[in-house]
């Protein structure tokens, strides 16, 4: 049942070898005052369906920028980004929003749960946006909280949860609409070692259950738990 809960709704392709993420010669420049910062300088990368990829590298090398482009919350200056064969690099805001809602789950370093909502309501929020009926979304939210080990914390507000528990709620929220891709930006960055290890185990479990994961991290343990490491430096992939 656990695996069903995590992967339900995935747009799993018949050809499991097809790259779920495909970036070709992607560049991303920012204006920083009068200067132009080249955050990404021609990145080409494929992530296979069911893969678990850790993007590592020094601060400022472009890891988070790369994750934002894969997550369709940013657009490249040039190059192409395709998710499950669909070009996402030039989507309108409305298209990108719908795409994220249905296909991508985000986990952030700082959890970013809505403090005014309970754990259950936080997890149910993306489903409400996807117009899932109230009964169904609350039931699935409860199942997801059980899946991440927080079945007994449904009614708690984020302020009543530990950092590790908040991150588990954030992971459950990311899985709410059964995304084809789970993206995490330093998910253990705010956690102590023990709690970080628990989250690493949860990610491994998720991947084992079929979720494709791309994680940006400085955490060696988390990176080592991934199936594949992508090393970046100065806006380029230097080892994949």
């Amino acid at each position, binding site marked *: 049942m656990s695996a069903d809960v995590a992967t339900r709704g995935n747009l799993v392709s018949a050809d499991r070898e097809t790259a779920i993420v495909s970036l070709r010669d992607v560049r991303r420049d920012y204006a920083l005052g009068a200067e132009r910062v080249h955050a990404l300088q021609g990145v080409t990368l494929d992530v296979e369906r069911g893969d678990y990829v850790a993007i590592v590298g020094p601060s400022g090398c472009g890891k988070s920028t790369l994750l934002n482009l894969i997550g369709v919350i940013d657009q490249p200056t040039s190059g192409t980004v395709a998710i499950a064969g669909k070009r996402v690099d030039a989507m309108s805001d409305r298209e990108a929003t*719908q795409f*994220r*809602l249905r296909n991508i789950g*985000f986990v952030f*370093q*700082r959890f970013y749960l809505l403090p*005014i909502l309970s754990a259950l309501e936080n997890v149910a929020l993306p489903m409400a946006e996807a117009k899932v009926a109230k009964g169904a979304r609350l039931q699935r939210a409860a199942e997801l909280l059980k899946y991440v080990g927080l079945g007994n914390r449904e009614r708690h507000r984020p302020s009543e949860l530990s950092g590790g528990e908040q991150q588990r709620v954030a992971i459950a929220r990311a899985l709410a609409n059964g995304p084809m891709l789970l993206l995490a930006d330093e998910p253990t960055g705010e956690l102590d070692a023990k709690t970080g290890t628990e989250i690493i185990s949860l990610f491994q479990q998720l991947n084992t259950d079929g979720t494709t994961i791309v994680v940006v991290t400085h955490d060696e343990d988390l990176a080592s738990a991934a199936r594949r490491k992508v090393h970046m430096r100065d806006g380029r992939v230097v080892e994949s």
Partner: protein
Amino acid sequence: MRAALAQASLTRHRGRTILAVLGVAVAAAMLLDMVMLATGMRESFRELLLSRGFEIRLAPKGTLPFDTDATIPGVSAIIATLRTNPDVREISPVLGASIHVLAGNRDVSGSVLGIDPSVQGDYELLSGQDVAASNFIVGNDHLLNQLGAHIGDTLSVAIGYDPQTRTYSGQRKLILTGRVKFIYGANDQSSAAVRRETLEAMGGQNHDRASLFMIRVRKGADAERVRDWIEKQLPNVTAISIATAIKQVDERLSYFRQLALILGAVSLFVGFLLVTTLVTVSVNERAGEIAVMRAIGVSRSHVVEQIVIEGVAISLAGAVLGLALGLVTARYLNTILSAFPGLPMAIDFFLFQPRAAWSALGLLIASGIGAGVYPAWRAASLPIAESLRREAIA
């Protein structure tokens, strides 16, 4: 879900929200009072004119009723002429004069109306008996209090005082038979009424004259047409319909209304600024939260809706509270202003009209929407990645 999120956002900083609602309530109260003030006197005056069902008034040419001491001669002929129009139902000629009333050692000056009690529309009998006979007089509370007189007392009434000879043109003993309330009279004015023939008999030169005619038209008849007909038939009178009178009042009160509208607009703007400030502060505090909502797939329009709901909720709560506050303050201010010397008792400065309340409520809700839309749209339009990066650095 969006309404629940908006409610949760507002209750997150309960104290701040309550303060904002109170601020909007004060602005709403001021707005309602100004809307009531802008239309109150006019509507109150209209209701006053209509209260006794006389749609047309005739005054001496070029004057307003009781504006001067001028009178209209030939009352009998005028009544005969008016009776030829089938749309004229009732005619009430009124003669006005100044009086001195003596009771014991007290001498009180005031005004007296000579009326026909069967068609008069100037007062309501509160107690006692109307002026059924030519030696009867009725008076208002102010006169009775000044004199210390009671129903049944005999009063010595004099009119037409000549300051040079220190004599009156007429003097007569009259029996006080009733206590009345003059509809167009002021609180601080001693007033009385007698039959018109009594006053004519006392006045000497006032024979067959009237200061004013009040006319009721037949039900369904066009009062404006009757007024036009009267002006053609009687060139020595000014015929004033309710509409004409209100137009004249409008002209006289226009500066007053403009002032009220300006103050009302200022109140609305203050309310708008309050809500905009609160929503902007709230949105800035939640920039990261909003970016995350957008990242997980919440649409821009839904973010805007949620924030606009917050603005509208504050405006609505403030408006409801403000309407109650506005009614209380309007009643208090009305009491103060109505005590202004010389004003008819029945005139209200602040007249509550459901339309005014709905207008104020509508304006506040519209301002709440306006106050929420800009900060909401700005927040929902920020680049998600950039907002998250800033939030992480902060």
